[in-house]
């Protein structure tokens, strides 16, 4: 264990990365809420597809020397809107995602192989680079997260109503198409933020796993999102704190904490069923 973890300078390190920790916490909250919608809409695969296009956007931005955050957002929003506009049925959405995803990944790899700059920047887009987030890079992430959170709070129950009970929601005056596009836009922005922190390959760990875990232990519309947020923050912040002691990339720690939470929730649900039976 001592080979991997060294917590002797932990306090100093935490201070050094306090901005990154804050970003991680915010992302955890965001992931907890957005993943709740993703699970209800059965859109996990779409998250993966959007993240690959976000990766492509960021790579092209890196190559052409424009802002990487902008590139990531442009790529993911494009993918999200295409999927949202063309395919509002899960089946169609999945096949369309399967078509878009490899194309995005291919473009991204092409752009990265043409890029002559720092190798760490390349790798970071795939696997994340939260520790390297400085104050200047953090500002747009904070603003974007804040905007998504406000949109989420305003449209929360309509989005859920439209996802869970579409026939009745439509009858009660909820425009399903608007909700579908709104959801994809929120998803696109959330992916764009996450890609820069955990990387394109690991976005699912924050935008799917928290709510998937919460759904194992509760169906409540109150406890579900709440637990999901707690799981998201625990994964993001906890994973990061662990990585500080290990001097290793942050993403494997976030994914491991996130996965562990899911396994625990799964065990709880299995035991509960046994007890009831």
């Amino acid at each position: 264990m001592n080979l991997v973890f060294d917590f002797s300078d932990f306090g100093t390190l935490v201070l050094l990365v306090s901005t990154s920790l804050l970003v991680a916490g915010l992302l955890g909250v965001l992931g907890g809420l957005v993943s709740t919608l993703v699970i209800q809409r059965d859109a996990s695969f779409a998250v993966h597809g959007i993240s690959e296009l976000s990766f492509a956007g960021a790579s092209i931005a890196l190559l052409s020397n424009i802002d990487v955050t902008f590139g990531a957002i442009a790529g993911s929003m494009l993918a999200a809107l295409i999927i949202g506009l063309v395919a509002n049925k899960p089946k169609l959405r999945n096949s369309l995602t399967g078509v878009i995803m490899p194309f995005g990944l291919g473009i991204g790899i092409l752009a990265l192989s043409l890029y002559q700059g720092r190798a760490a920047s390349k790798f970071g887009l795939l696997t994340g680079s939260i520790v390297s987030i400085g104050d200047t890079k953090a500002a747009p992430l904070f603003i974007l997260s804040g905007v998504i959170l406000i949109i989420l709070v305003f449209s929360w129950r309509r989005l859920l109503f439209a996802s869970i009970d579409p026939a009745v929601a439509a009858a009660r005056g909820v425009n399903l198409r608007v909700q579908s596009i709104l959801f994809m836009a929120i998803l696109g922005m959330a992916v764009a933020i996450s890609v820069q922190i955990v990387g394109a390959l690991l976005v699912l760990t924050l935008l799917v796993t928290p709510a998937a875990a919460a759904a194992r232990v509760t169906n409540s519309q109150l406890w579900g999102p709440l637990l999901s947020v707690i799981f998201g923050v625990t994964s993001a912040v906890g994973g990061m704190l662990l990585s500080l002691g290990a001097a290793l990339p942050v993403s494997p720690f976030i994914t491991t904490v996130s996965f562990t939470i899911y396994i625990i929730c799964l065990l709880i649900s299995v035991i509960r069923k046994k007890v009831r039976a």
Partner: protein
Amino acid sequence: MLSVLSIHDATLVVDEKQLWKDLNLEVKPGEFIAIIGANGSGKTSLLKAILGQIKLTKGKIRFGLELVGKGNPHIGYIPQQRALDDAANILVKDLVRFGYSGHKLGVFSAFGKTSKKVKEALACADAVHLANKNFSELSGGEQQRVRVAQAIVADPSLLLCDEPLSALDLQQQQIVSELIKREAKDHNTAVLFVTHDVNPVLDMVDRVLYLANGSFSIGTPDEVFRSDVLSSLYGTKVEVIRNNNRIVVVGAGTQDHHEGDHK
């Protein structure tokens, strides 16, 4: 008295097939109207037109004074019971809460007035004990009682029921339809009740809208369920048999045949 719903000269043609033509209907508050017809006769299409989900070929539908838009929070809606409902993994109380405030902006309030209204609606449907259960764990009849609670929780002035009794056994059909009738009567809510079999609701309906053969007939059950009326509607010899307060329509042909034939 002002109509809850006015359908004016409405014609609907889908895929070059005329479902109904020049339909006029004024629905008064508290009125219970059954919409009867075979599969493909345009019963559900009529509900969809009222909800603004399909456009009429000709004519207008007004809800209150205004032309119908895409859905309306003053309309309650009870869907068909299905084995695999979209709303499978949701708690009963949350589903009813959606009916009360799901169309509004903001986050859910689980307390205060919402909670009180949800409890009242569940009590009306005799479903308080189901509040913390998963919707998918309920029997078909229980699910439809919860759907009634969800539809009435916001005190709608019009209740649209899209085959709410299909897939239920006879006893459950009776319980659910009587529940809908009682709630509608208590709150003076108008009901449009789509069904392929009129018998479970025969005692409750004020009027019947019978759709068949691209045309329709409106009136009290006694006015519509007559051999001469339905024969002229179908354009062929049809016999209406009343037996123990049950109605059977014989000879309506295979394409437009009435559920009563084989029940």
